[in-house]
């Protein structure tokens, strides 16, 4: 463990965490390169790298740089956003089960999107436009409504510990009820469409989605920089944090807000991809043997899980392309089980 100082800013760098983060970046980028080469027109990874750096034919550049790149980049961005917001929520709640899905924002976004899919009609150009533009917009609106409700309640309820998540349970139950109501009231075709959206998918996502999710994630990361060092203090509990000179209330609220904004953007663009926000911080924490989930490692492992899952989703049942959310759990859960079972012996 060593301390990095840069003027007034100092950060503790654990070598193991740094190695885990670097390794996760390498693997994630490697998987993204493999993923760029896969499809009807397939390319070897070295060839993909050549094309990426401008050495391909016009046709190859069109396919890799214009058509496939946004999807792979989106997978990285969404995975990073989910991983980092999961790490924030797990640390502030000091609960292993905590994840931003439990804050109710995801279910609010889902209710909005599902309402447009089910109630929006199925025929004509208007319906097509409604689906491509209306679904993400409705997801943002639904997520904002849920976030507002949670935020209003958190002004009354203590923001530390599991209280915000219990509030989220109530909000999720409400929106979840609406979703299942629409699910059984809808025609089976709409229900199947809803099911795909609720699974979370990167199919047919391109530059506009990447721009939206990328901007929000970068802004979120920038806002996180001044707050991140306080996360370690918060993980000691509100009383200790207070005695160390931190005001836990506003800090936690600010951190949760960042987490919510990042998750909402990811959900609006790709649907509620399950399990990444829960599993990435645990994988990061266990791999780097750190007491709390390290933020950067959580982000890179989140990106790794989503990119890897998307690769599996596109290849496992060819020619069927599964939505990525159907695979994230299948990819992430065995990792988690393996780390659990293989972990160090008690107090060795």
């Amino acid at each position: 463990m060593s301390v990095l100082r840069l003027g007034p800013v100092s950060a503790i760098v654990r070598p193991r965490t740094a190695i885990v983060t670097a390794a996760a970046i390498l693997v994630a980028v490697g998987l993204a390169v493999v993923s760029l080469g896969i499809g009807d027109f397939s390319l070897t990874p070295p060839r993909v790298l050549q094309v990426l750096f401008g050495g391909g034919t016009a046709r190859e550049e069109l396919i890799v740089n214009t058509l496939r790149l946004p999807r792979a980049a989106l997978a990285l961005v969404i995975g990073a956003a989910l991983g980092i917001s999961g790490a924030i929520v797990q640390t502030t709640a000091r609960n292993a089960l905590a994840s931003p899905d439990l804050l109710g924002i995801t279910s609010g976004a889902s209710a909005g999107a599902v309402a447009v899919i089910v109630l929006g009609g199925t025929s004509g150009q208007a319906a097509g436009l409604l689906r491509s533009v209306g679904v993400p917009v409705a997801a943002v609106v639904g997520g904002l409504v849920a976030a507002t409700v949670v935020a209003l309640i958190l002004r009354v309820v203590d923001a530390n510990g599991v209280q915000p998540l219990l509030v989220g349970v109530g909000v999720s139950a409400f929106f979840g009820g609406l979703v299942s109501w629409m699910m059984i009231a809808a025609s089976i075709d709409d229900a199947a469409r809803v099911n795909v959206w609720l699974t979370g998918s990167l199919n047919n996502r391109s530059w506009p989605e990447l721009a939206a999710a990328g901007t929000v994630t970068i802004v979120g990361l920038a806002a996180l920089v001044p707050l991140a060092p306080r996360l370690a203090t918060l993980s000691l509990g509100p009383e200790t944090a207070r005695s160390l000179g931190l005001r836990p209330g506003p800090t936690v609220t600010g951190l949760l807000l960042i987490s919510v904004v990042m998750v909402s953007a990811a959900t609006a663009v790709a649907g509620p991809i399950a399990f990444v926000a829960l599993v990435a911080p645990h994988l990061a924490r266990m791999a780097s043997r750190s007491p709390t989930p390290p933020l950067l490692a959580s982000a890179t492992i989140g990106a790794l899980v989503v990119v890897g899952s998307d690769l599996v989703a596109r290849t496992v049942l060819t020619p069927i392309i599964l939505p990525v959310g159907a695979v994230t759990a299948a990819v992430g859960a065995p990792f988690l089980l393996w780390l659990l079972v293989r972990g160090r012996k008690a107090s060795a």
Partner: protein
Amino acid sequence: MLVVGVLALAAVLAVATLSIFVGTRQFDPATVFGAFTGTAGEEAHAIILGQRVPRTILGIVGGAALAVGGALVQAHTRNPLADPGLLGVTAGSALAVVLAISLLGVTTPAGYLWFAFAGALVGTVLVAVFGSVATRRRDAGPASLVLAGAAVSALLGAVTGVMLLLDTATLDVYRFWTVGSLAGGRGFEALGVVWPFLVLGLLLALVQAPALNALALGDDIAQSLGRNVAGTRMLGLAAIVLLVGGAVACIGSLGFVGLVAPHLVRRLCRDDQRALVPLAAAAGALLVLVADILGRVAVAPNEIPVGITLGVLGGPAFLVLVVRSARRRSSRRRPATPQATAARRVVSS
């Protein structure tokens, strides 16, 4: 404490009576009474004894079983966010039901029964195996059980999800099963088969309540107080799979009750598991019955399945409770931590 118990029982009985009276067809008390003695008309007899009484019983039993299951999961994992589905029960049931629908063409709830139950068992055994290996390897106790549960549930859920994405016909049957409903009378037939499991599960839950009070202090302290931690945990898993698996087999995978019912009564019984188990059962039964009654009157003559009213009406109601208890707490001095209360209780007993 006894007063609270009697009041809870009275409330369940009152709501159960209401549940028998409320519906699209209105009956006066004499007719309802007549239906039980056999002197009412054939139609009243069919509606009351054939539909309303079964769904009321189903609501009480199912709600109570899910709530007790939830209380047990939360105590064993020492995690207030744990719900009865956490330990693989619901995910296992759902996968087995989907497999039954998709591969074997089963479409009736009576046909799902054993699949739901067997799936619950398999899911829980998987969690128990991974959880116990993980607990032995690390000193993280409850957290590794929780994580093993989350991982196994997610894995089983992924298989279910893929099958539902590929097979729209199965999704068409599954979407109604998964909402959770008391209507139709089939669930009551299932109850006729699984009730011994539910009774056994409830007994196991009551038996382990004192041990759970010790477990609230942490595995090490529970051990030093002479409790068999591993044995209690196995007993807990058995009770959870019996209760939740049985309930899910009868009324589908009804969410929210198991997570929320224990929270509603936790403060009343100061986290004492011996009181929490019966009170959570009453709270769960009340929640499900009230939600079912509201689902019947909200859009009469149609009805909304209980799983939906539970979420849409229960969610906001739960929020009101959270806010009110927070207000009360901030106006009083800081309460003792659950550990401190539990320690005092173990010392005094």
